[in-house]
């Protein structure tokens, strides 16, 4: 049977996508090493406390050097400085995909395919789904509009005027 080639990046990336889905969402205590953020926005705080001042804000897949992880907190180096700060361990993921999984499933996967697997792929899938299912995302988008800094959220929560 003739196989139509899929458009886009092809089958190797699908294997990669599936392998990527087994990324550890909440890592346990870590040995020193580099990790990447796995959320769109994460904060580095001055101490391992929710109410500690924010030292830096990181974007998606930012690289972070982790000294150690303990009790849900990662002690990290603030990028671009020699200061130390603390992040939620659950916001971090392994920097690279599990090598064994990738090799077994998809021989010949290139570095650019690895990079592309993490970017835009899922947003593109949503575009495709929106069209085919005639799904209305306008209210979902409206829900996501309001964003508040941790400091302002804590002030509101405490009842400060």
């Amino acid at each position: 049977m003739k196989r139509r080639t899929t458009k886009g990046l092809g089958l190797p990336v699908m294997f990669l996508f599936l392998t990527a889905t087994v990324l550890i969402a909440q890592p346990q205590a870590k040995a020193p090493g580099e990790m990447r953020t796995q959320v769109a926005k994460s904060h580095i705080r001055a101490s391992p406390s929710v109410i500690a001042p924010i030292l830096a804000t990181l974007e998606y897949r930012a690289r972070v050097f982790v000294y150690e992880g303990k009790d849900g907190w990662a002690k990290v180096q603030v990028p671009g400085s020699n200061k130390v700060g603390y992040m939620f361990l659950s916001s971090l993921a392994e920097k690279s995909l599990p090598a064994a999984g990738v090799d077994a499933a998809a021989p010949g996967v290139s570095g650019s395919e690895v990079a592309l697997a993490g970017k835009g792929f899922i947003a593109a899938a949503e575009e495709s789904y929106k069209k085919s299912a005639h799904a209305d995302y306008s209210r979902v988008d409206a829900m996501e509009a309001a964003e508040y800094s941790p400091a302002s959220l804590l002030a509101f929560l405490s009842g400060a005027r």
Partner: protein
Amino acid sequence: MPRSPAPEGLSAFADQAVIDGLVDGQQAAALKEAARAAAEAAHPFSPEEEYYLGRAVAAEIFSAYRPYGRADINAYIDRLGQGLALFSPRPEIFAGYHFMVMDSEEINAIASPGGHILVTRGLLRKTKSEDELAALLCHEIVHVALGHGLASMQGARLAQVIFDYALRAGKAGGGEAAVFAESFGEAISELASVLIVSGYSQASEFRADAEAKRMLAAAGYDPEALARLIERLPATEDAGGVSFVTMHPAASSRLEALREIPLPPVQIANVSAAERGARFNAMRKLF
């Protein structure tokens, strides 16, 4: 909300992909296996994937409920909820936690895996203090933080969603996804139904209660507020047909389980119980 017809198994699904010439037999077999393995893994989705799947679910849920149009109530619930989420087991999820009120008499709260948490006016009216409102929001936040929504999908169904999602993602921009769009839509519809109608496993409910109580204590709220709310919820179906209570374990077992939870110290500073009380009383008139 009408349930879509039960989908064919993952095998039939993959076989159709072969028939349509989208993959060959070997690739279909490999993808099936990978999807099954991923579905069985403790965390089959990354936060980003969870978010996009959650958005699809939230869009589906919105087709069943009408949002409550008052900006002041929504802003109050949203700010309160986002602040409480800082004390959850997973304070940062891909695009954050977001809250909205649904204009419905049903007593219901629904949390999509992507962090979209919807609460009905019917349920808000059951709360008598900001502590109890916080208790209900914390309970829903924990369902998202611990990934209970995705876990409540059956394993085979989840594998099918992953397979379909990967296939679709692999054809991004190719326009050949239409063949699978219907089944993916069915999977989303089914997950939305599960979340609206039957909720989570009993173990997940007990866990959500325990973590919510800890969150309340850490945020300087009365940790007994959750127990009070549980006791007050009706034991029988209320107006609107879907009862918050029928989705949960019996109140007596929940209260029993809550008694033994060790609590963290208060982590937040400068709590003004008076201000919390005043603003809740102003808002509750609009519930």
